[in-house]
């Protein structure tokens, strides 16, 4: 019988601990498929964040490092400088990348560090039980914004792709989503390109994946995917924000 669906080699057999309906699982799979497709598992080193994906070091079958909260781009910088021929990726949440680790993110980007960053934006601090994130939407109710995010006192969400696109250096920046089949296919293409760019020595590539957190959004998995479509994507428009090589080729 032909196998039509199998686990990517870049994932281990460890059972994922994510909540039912959480899109972290899909994103893991897309990253693993990209690694498989490019045949780079033996020379890839991944960096897990502090966040719900902290145990990604058990799930990816390549060599893995667990970084301190927000520091993954600095750790990646060290790894890449030590081993320029290895493929280095980080996998980070919004609190990790856009709050506590903002300096590390911006500076890795502006050095055009030749690494791949997978940025999972679920507009919440998932792991710690649903606090306001730098990407929580205006009015969004969270544990630490119980009356809804009040932009007058805590400011507006950070749009990471738009922000980083203001820098001259980065090679590739794209925002994708995984709330339906079409978006998942697109996300896969984007993630693969972000790894291919590194193989080609092009520099910093960041893929923001608009994700869901049914548990801390207090929604069913389906309702959460609907909310991604109705509320998240309008605030965080999908698309390519930077493609330096393509622009230079024109």
């Amino acid at each position, binding site marked *: 019988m032909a196998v039509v669906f199998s686990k990517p080699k870049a994932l281990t057999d460890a059972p994922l601990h994510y909540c039912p309906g959480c899109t972290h699982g899909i994103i893991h799979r897309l990253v693993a498929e990209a690694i498989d497709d490019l045949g780079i598992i033996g020379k890839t080193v991944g960096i897990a964040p502090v966040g719900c994906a902290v145990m990604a070091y058990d799930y990816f079958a*390549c060599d893995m490092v667990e970084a301190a909260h927000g520091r993954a781009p600095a750790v990646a910088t060290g790894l890449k400088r030590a081993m320029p021929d290895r493929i280095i990726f980080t996998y980070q949440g919004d609190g990790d990348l856009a709050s506590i680790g903002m300096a590390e993110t911006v500076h890795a980007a502006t050095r055009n560090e030749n690494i791949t960053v997978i940025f999972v934006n679920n507009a919440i601090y998932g792991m710690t039980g649903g606090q306001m994130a730098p990407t929580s939407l205006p009015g969004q109710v969270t544990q630490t914004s119980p009356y809804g995010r009040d932009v007058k006192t805590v400011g507006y969400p950070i749009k990471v792709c738009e922000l980083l696109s203001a820098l001259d250096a980065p090679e590739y920046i794209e925002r994708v989503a995984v709330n339906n089949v079409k978006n998942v296919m697109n996300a896969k293409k984007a993630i693969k390109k972000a790894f291919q760019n590194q193989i080609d020595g092009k520099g910093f590539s960041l893929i923001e994946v608009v994700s869901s957190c049914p548990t801390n959004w207090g929604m069913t998995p389906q309702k959460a995917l609907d909310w991604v479509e109705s509320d998240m994507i309008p605030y965080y428009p999908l698309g390519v924000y930077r493609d330096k090589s393509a622009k230079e080729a024109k």
Partner: protein
Amino acid sequence: MAKVLMKGNEAVAEAAIRSGCRHYFGYPITPQTEIAAYMAKRMPKIGGTFLQAESEISAINMVYGVSSAGRRVMTSSSSPGVSLKQEGISYLAGSDLPALVVNVQRGGPGLGGIQPSQSDYFQATKGGGHGDYHLIVLAPASVQEMADLTAKAFDLSDKYRMPAMLLADGTIGQMMEPVELPPETDGNAVEKPWAVTGTENKREHNIINSLYLVPEQLEVKNLERYERYKTVEQNEVMFEEYMTEDCDVCVVAFGIAARVSKNAITAARAKGIKAGLIRPITLWPFPKDIIAKTAERVKGFVSVELSMGQMIDDIRLAESCKKPVALCSRVGGMIPSPDEVLKAVEDMEGGKF
């Protein structure tokens, strides 16, 4: 090899390169900037990395990355910057990663000043960051030792899979002295099968990690680490004894304070007071045994420090409070004069303390 005239900070940098360190990350701060400047010049010429990080936090995490790859790596800073590195140092310790952190201390707390100090002794020897851990802490007292102990720090750090700290001060960092540099090595003497260099599809994946959610496992990790620390305490204690054979008053001092103390001891001897010096070279592991042994025959100790009295606690613990220990100290960037140390020695000799 012929001696060369160098600043203490430059001697650290050159010794690191000769020890096979090809990766340096730092953030500018006085009085250690010469280390970064030296690395910025040399590293690009020898295929190494010099990177001025966006902060000390980033620098130490870059160190964490290089060390994960199994390569020798260092960062340097001065007191306020070393405070920022503590998170990363705790992670290095928790992931059993070797690395060298240099602290060319200045006065504190807060922004403090830029003159020499030894007031980061507690931070260096008692942990500094969160969790149960130790660093190997080496205290140079000359430019020669800045070089020698840098090489030693890399070796010990690799051997025991724990971060090492060179705890210097602004004076030793800035002073110029002739130095014989350590021999060139590639720094690969210790095998690192745990490093994340890519599986090459030939082995299970390696994981560098300090997270253990099962308390039984985390306890075992801590206990194993402390077994290793015990071996370090048994095998790696270093100190210098100066005129201690017959001494009645024993000065204990490290780094620049030890140099001042030697002058005071000469002056005391000229006055007929039998003074001597124990100079800890490793601050962790602390030379407890020699202090306990010495306590049996001296009238008392004088701890000479550029702090409000930090090492003095370790002296008292080492000699189980059997003999009096006086403190002779200046702080805020000030250094005790030989006369001030002499006075403290005379007081101890005369039973005034």
